[in-house]
């Protein structure tokens, strides 16, 4: 996709989202479902930054998500903070989770990073599950959705949508900036070849740590808002199944792309909503979709589209090719042909 076409498509998506409270009823969609899509998209972006761009198997991001939810729930229940305060505390809880786990995760790469991420997530899960007096244990805890500080009206579902929308736009803008920056290109370098990054004189650990903190903060924000959306925090939000769902959304949409997480979250959340009204076996269908995705188009929906466009563009000759063909000093290409 050329830069301009991609920009236009992105703008169109944002316009549709802006008017979603008016459009959703036309397709019999509850606006809360659209809010959920946006929050899941933020969490999937967190996985995307770590897995899609940096190549780290982030299989435990539910830890930050659940910390966000419980951060909001506990602060509302015990400290009676307002709406904005709950969101802020949940987000900071995610960031703190990253600060605490980061130094341990940093020492691991590949599958060990993934396993340790899962293990840490499960630790939080069991704390929430067992510490019944504070967290309500298995039953979770209700969140009485608080009013915004200074106002008296409780945030309605459509007003909530715009909060989620604003959070999504902020995260998307931050994400775009990060992955397009020299910092983001270095993350891609780490994914493709970490030893080379280090032999370029860069301490890759430092880059990974910052990426981890960014992801944890975004995921914490998503978790806090999700808790406030469903007025509830429960241990399964911290569970590795939840982490798996985030990974699934990223893979469905297309890892390593800016808009993939939104697309994946959309397919996942709305697909689940529709199929689960038809059959309680909805997970079978999502599982089948996932298998089809990994086998048929591992780059995800958006990644496959982008690759197709690139192939089309690659069919054309460029001046470079012509110059290379006549360059007498050019190194001889063997095998694959220039």
């Amino acid at each position, binding site marked *: 996709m050329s830069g301009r076409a991609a920009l236009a498509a992105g703008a169109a998506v944002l316009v549709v989202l802006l008017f979603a409270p008016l459009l959703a009823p036309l397709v019999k969609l509850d606006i809360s479902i659209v809010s959920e899509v946006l929050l899941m998209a933020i969490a999937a972006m967190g996985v995307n930054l770590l897995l899609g761009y940096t190549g780290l198997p982030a299989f435990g991001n539910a830890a930050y998500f659940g910390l966000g939810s419980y951060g909001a729930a506990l602060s509302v229940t015990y400290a009676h903070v307002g709406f904005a305060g709950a969101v802020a505390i949940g987000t900071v809880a995610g960031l703190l989770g990253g600060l605490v786990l980061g130094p341990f995760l940093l020492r691991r790469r590949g599958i060990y990073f993934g396993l340790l991420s899962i293990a840490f997530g499960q630790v939080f899960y069991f704390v929430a599950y067992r510490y019944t007096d504070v967290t309500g244990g298995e039953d979770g805890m209700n969140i009485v959705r608080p009013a915004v500080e200074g106002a008296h009206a409780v945030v309605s579902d459509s007003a909530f949508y715009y909060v989620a929308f604003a959070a999504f736009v902020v995260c998307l803008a931050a994400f775009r900036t990060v992955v397009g920056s020299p910092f983001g290109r270095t993350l891609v370098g780490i994914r*493709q070849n970490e030893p080379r990054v280090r032999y370029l004189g*860069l301490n890759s650990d430092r880059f990974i740590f910052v990426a981890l903190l960014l992801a944890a903060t975004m995921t914490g924000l998503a978790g806090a808002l999700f808790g406030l959306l469903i007025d509830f925090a429960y241990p399964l939000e911290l569970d590795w199944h939840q982490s798996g769902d985030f990974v699934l959304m990223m893979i469905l949409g297309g890892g390593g792309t800016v808009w993939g997480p939104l697309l994946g979250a959309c397919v996942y959340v709305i697909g689940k909503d529709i199929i689960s009204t038809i059959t309680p076996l909805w997970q079978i269908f999502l599982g089948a979709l996932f298998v089809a995705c990994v086998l048929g188009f591992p780059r995800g929906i958006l990644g496959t589209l982008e690759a197709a466009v690139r192939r089309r563009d690659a069919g054309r000759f460029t001046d470079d090719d012509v110059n290379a063909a006549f360059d007498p000093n050019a190194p001889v290409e063997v095998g694959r042909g220039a």
Partner: protein
Amino acid sequence: MRDAGAVLLEATGVSKGFGGVRAVDDVSLAVREGTIHALIGPNGAGKTTFFNAISGYAFPDRGRVTFRGADVTRVPNWRRVAVGMGRTFQTPSVFPELSVEENVRLGVRAHAGQAFRLRASRGEAHAAVERRVDELLGFVNLTARRTRPLAELAHGSQRLCEIAMSLSTEPVMVLLDEPMAGLAEAESERIITVIRDLRERLGLTVLFVEHNMRVVLSLADRITVLDRGRVLAEGTPAEIAANRAVRDAYLGEGVLDHV
């Protein structure tokens, strides 16, 4: 043939083992400034293990490595680069999905202290980075292929790009691990020219591992021969070619008759 400069890199009694096997056993070696120094030896002699030990890829079990007079034995690899050591790998270590120029640009930005930024540089800083990228691409003659992803290029071009990347950090010395491995004749010739240029045009010190005896004898000022993890001999190409122990242990007589 040169042998004048001060010692730039010195390994003293370096050992490295894996399990019960001592892959490198008490190896000492000194590379003098401005020389092209070759490390040769049969398969399994410990050349790459030794290379990894002195370049900080895997620290040695015992021994000491000094670089520009400072002890770097346990200095992490990324910090060694900052003090002027560059290296390449047996299999070109590049970013396969990025274009040639992006590969080099990552290194140039890293050296300019821009890799951690959230904003691409502008104005003069940007122009300086791009000038340096152009210069490095010109040095290894990859300018015409600059927009191609590395994965689409032949092995030899990938290796040239890797050399350009290792130069992007402005090293005083480069360590090349089998730069000619797996290359066709014509590609090898390009690499040989580039290695000569590293010293002649850029004034760098080079330490390289190589199998091809003809290349080593024509290119190197000094040669160290490793066998079964130990130093078998060290000297000028003529001395190595005449060394009976080297002839007996490693080289076919025929190889050296041409020299």
